[in-house]
């Protein structure tokens, strides 16, 4: 009998290749390609005068140089606005190479193609560009002030203003027994995958076909963009996503300028061309996220039950808006978390600044929303003198209230309806795991030793598995090996393993006989992409449905071959056998032969298939409605997103002298529905927590008033090393299946990072006894807050 694979801690099949140094990332490919260096704007806001490139062409090894003047047709148009929205009244996107004006440091101005990167960079340095600098807008305050404009034709720097409400929040707040107002800030961070962006392209002159390898989260998106920009038919373009060294959101934006410029150059030059971003380029010209300022007003009763909630916030979208309003829309809706305020209203403005674009980074607006909501819960608890967990509990949606309609429209344009969950049980679990009710004893013991500790709690709900669809293709070869493909891409989530587990169970084959390919438009031309914690839900479900279809086809053939009813058959380890009479059997490989009326006896399976006879001898070889081959292609398209949830708790210690913040315990209760592979899910949680720790305590983008990024290196932008992450991340799972997909699963990829800012603020506030309203927080900032509060308290006395 085949051992059930779904739900098991199966070791990842990807690992060995990576460990042997055989990972194949984009820069590892096309060793003979020409190399690209991009000249980028040194100014945050400037008009471009003359660009002088003649000196470049004198450099030995330079093959071509391009500026905006060299772009033709659709290439000369602005890059696409991927996700338009009616509220985005002033959407703006950049050109592949800047035209007339630059709006952030790092914007691509010219591109040099040369025999190697050393030469290309030397040559790019010879280009002279005349810039007339313009006033610079950096930060939300400057953008709101609007005395300077990023785009002349965008009044107030406002790209969009959007409002949603479920009733008259102001009236509900006014009537409530208690009221609070909060101002809450989060600064910029970024995905910062260790592999930056990279694109390689080869034009085949003989066949007029373009092959593009790119480090992307959406191969089909890049394919469509490249075809459209270069005026090619879609079938002339193949996009292959090789191994990707981390994405976390930044690689879902498409096309990046280089993703169309490199194929353009490859086609014009008739030679393979490659662009590999360096780290400084990634800092200044790939996307950031997170910066928002929030104003919260809340009214509540004596138990802390929210009666009305009103939120205003301002979102820094950088210089352009290629990704529309996804991030602030997610903040505005997912802010509600596991709670059910009877009346909620939210309004946001998305603002231009002269900084690099802002697009989703793991969590995508949720960390900010959770920060606003959870800080509010803590403030209510502090105001009433109540337990923070108890205040949350009275506001929870209850298990019998699902599906729960929040009365808003979510990022995917669908109603914000939570499908399932059990928040009270999650809270019980996290309290038990961290020892919430026993913490005063821990605090007292620490205090007796002269140490200061605090505990924090944060809850979140994450809409995952957004549509519109993904597909799966499953094919049984005559060897019995099963080849699976799905169009979305992989950047470390173990898709090959998790999807093979699904196929092994659904089809009844051995896990090791299943091979999964992702992100290759030659294998699966219709697909969406890997973002929004959607891969397992969308492609996992599509692949499961496809495997079921293949199994049905196999059973029909086997019933015919073995002359029994389909109901009397079972499939295990790649063999279909008669229940109770296992010696009467036929392998899936043999059935693959039988499924194809054209049977050259090339292999053993074909020869052994000759003992069986299938099909109606009086019918045509491939009857209507059937197809040759033991294979199928199917798609999964859910009615709306499925909502995962979780609660994190942390115990921190703050140094009384240096204000250093140490993590003593980190606990997670996580509910992503049914688990395909707990090993992979826990890895995703660990990774999210590590990024969350970075976002809460270390990472910020330090732009100066001129729009220069002052910390554009790993030495100055502090990401957690192994020395900064919690020693142990204690994880407990809760599994409330989703009713919206065939496997009952929910997304897990982003979850770990979502509550971090709220969580650490809660714990540090608990340790220190004063409000924490800005994140991230460094020891020096905490120290400054101590001085400020000591002075205030002194003045109060």
């Amino acid at each position: 009998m085949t051992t059930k694979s779904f739900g098991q801690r199966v070791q990842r099949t990807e690992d060995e290749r990576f460990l042997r140094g055989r990972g194949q990332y984009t820069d590892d490919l096309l060793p003979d390609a020409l190399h690209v260096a991009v000249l980028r704007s040194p100014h945050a806001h400037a008009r471009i005068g003359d660009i002088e490139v003649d000196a470049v062409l004198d450099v030995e090894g330079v093959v071509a140089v391009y500026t905006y003047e060299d772009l033709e047709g659709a290439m000369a148009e602005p890059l696409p606005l991927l996700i338009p929205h009616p509220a985005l009244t002033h959407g703006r996107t950049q050109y592949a190479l800047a035209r007339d004006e630059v709006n952030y440091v790092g914007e691509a101005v010219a591109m040099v193609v040369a025999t190697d990167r050393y030469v290309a960079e030397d040559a790019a340095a010879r280009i002279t560009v005349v810039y007339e600098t313009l006033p610079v807008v950096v930060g939300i305050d400057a953008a709101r002030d609007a005395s300077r404009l990023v785009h002349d034709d965008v009044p107030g720097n406002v790209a969009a203003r959007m409002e949603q409400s479920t009733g008259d929040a102001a009236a509900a707040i006014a009537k409530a027994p208690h009221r609070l107002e909060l101002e809450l800030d989060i600064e910029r961070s970024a995905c910062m995958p260790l592999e930056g962006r990279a694109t390689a392209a080869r034009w085949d002159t003989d066949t007029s076909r373009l092959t593009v390898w790119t480090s992307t989260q959406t191969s089909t998106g890049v394919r469509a963009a490249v075809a459209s920009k270069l005026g090619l038919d879609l079938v002339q373009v193949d996009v292959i996503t090789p191994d990707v060294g981390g994405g976390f959101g930044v690689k879902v934006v498409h096309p990046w300028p280089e993703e169309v410029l490199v194929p353009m150059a490859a086609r014009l030059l008739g030679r393979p061309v490659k662009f590999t971003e360096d780290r400084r380029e990634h800092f200044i010209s790939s996307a950031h996220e997170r910066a928002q300022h929030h104003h919260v007003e809340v009214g509540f009763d004596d138990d802390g039950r929210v009666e009305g909630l009103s939120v205003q916030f301002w979102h820094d979208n950088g210089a352009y808006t290629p990704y529309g309003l996804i991030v602030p829309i997610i903040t505005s809706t997912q802010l509600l978390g596991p709670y059910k305020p009877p009346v909620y209203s939210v309004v946001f403005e998305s603002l231009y600044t002269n900084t690099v674009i802002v697009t989703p980074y793991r969590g995508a607006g949720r960390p900010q929303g959770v920060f606003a909501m959870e800080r509010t819960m803590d403030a209510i608890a502090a105001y009433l003198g109540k337990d923070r967990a108890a205040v949350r509990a009275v506001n929870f949606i209850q298990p019998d209230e699902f599906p729960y309609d929040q009365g808003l429209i979510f990022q995917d344009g669908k109603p914000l309806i939570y499908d399932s969950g059990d928040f009270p049980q999650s809270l019980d679990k996290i309290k038990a795991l961290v020892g919430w009710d026993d913490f005063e004893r821990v605090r007292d013991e620490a205090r007796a030793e002269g140490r200061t500790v605090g505990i924090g709690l944060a809850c979140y709900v994450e809409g995952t598995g957004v549509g519109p669809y993904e597909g799966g293709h499953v094919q049984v070869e005559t060897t019995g090996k099963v080849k699976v493909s799905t169009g979305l891409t992989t950047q470390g989530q173990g898709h090959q393993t998790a999807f093979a587990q699904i196929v092994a169970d659904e089809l009844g084959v051995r896990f090791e006989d299943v091979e999964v390919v992702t992100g290759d438009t030659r294998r699966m031309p219709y697909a969406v992409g890997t973002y929004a914690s959607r891969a397992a839900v969308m492609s996992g479900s599509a692949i499961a449905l496809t495997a079921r279809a293949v199994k049905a086809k196999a059973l029909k053939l086997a019933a015919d071959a073995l002359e029994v009813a389909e109901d009397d058959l079972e499939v295990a380890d790649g063999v279909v056998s008669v229940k109770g009479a296992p010696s009467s059997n036929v392998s899936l490989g043999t059935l693959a032969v039988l499924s194809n009326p054209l049977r050259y006896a090339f292999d053993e399976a074909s020869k052994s298939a000759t003992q069986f006879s299938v099909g109606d001898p009086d019918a045509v070889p491939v009857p209507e409605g059937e197809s040759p081959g033991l294979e199928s292609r199917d798609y999964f398209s859910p009615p709306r997103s499925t909502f995962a949830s979780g609660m994190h708790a942390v115990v921190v210690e703050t140094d009384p002298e240096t204000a250093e913040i140490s993590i003593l315990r980190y606990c997670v209760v996580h509910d992503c529905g049914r688990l395909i592979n707990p090993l992979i899910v826990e890895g995703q949680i660990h990774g999210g927590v590590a990024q969350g720790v970075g976002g809460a305590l270390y990472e910020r983008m330090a732009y100066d008033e001129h729009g220069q990024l002052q910390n554009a290196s790993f030495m100055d932008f502090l990401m957690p090393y192994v020395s900064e992450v919690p020693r142990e991340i204690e994880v407990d799972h809760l599994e409330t299946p989703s009713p919206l997909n065939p496997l009952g699963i929910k997304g897990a990829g982003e979850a770990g990072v979502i509550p971090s800012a709220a969580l650490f603020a809660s714990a540090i506030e608990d340790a220190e006894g004063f409000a924490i309203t800005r994140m991230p927080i460094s020891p020096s900032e905490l120290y400054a807050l101590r001085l400020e509060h000591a002075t205030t308290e002194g003045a109060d006395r």
Partner: protein
Amino acid sequence: MEADLTWRVDGVEHTLAVDTRTTVLDALRDRLGNTSPKKGCDHGQCGACTVLVDGRRQLSCLGLAVAHDGSEITTAAGLVDGDELHPVQQAFVDHDGLQCGYCTPGQVCSAVGMLDEVKAGHPSAVSDDLEADVELDEDEIRERMSGNLCRCGAYSNIVAAIEEAARA
């Protein structure tokens, strides 16, 4: 300006002429086609390019190739013994010590070099007694591996993997 250089890389000798500005990393990747070490920052700040040079771990993006004429260089690809993974590599599989795999060749080279440093008695910033044999506890592993970034955050499992490899 070019200079000649002879190396043994993963057990194979190579003689090549390189632009004197060429780093060890670029020479390995672009000249020898050995893409095992990865470029994460090119500034010695991420550790993805870590290789063993004459047995010591080194950031290959920070060294000039011409400065290592005659050296024996081992990348993650050269740690294996035929089909057999190095015990450190196997421990990474057993403990799920990686996700996207980009930092992984550097992590394993760093771990192998680090374990040899421990055997040789090198103290670290968290060693209490600079003269005594090193007791490789979790604090020591974290300190000694703190030059290798993993943005996927597989750190807890990397530590577990190295603990196991150290016991073997």
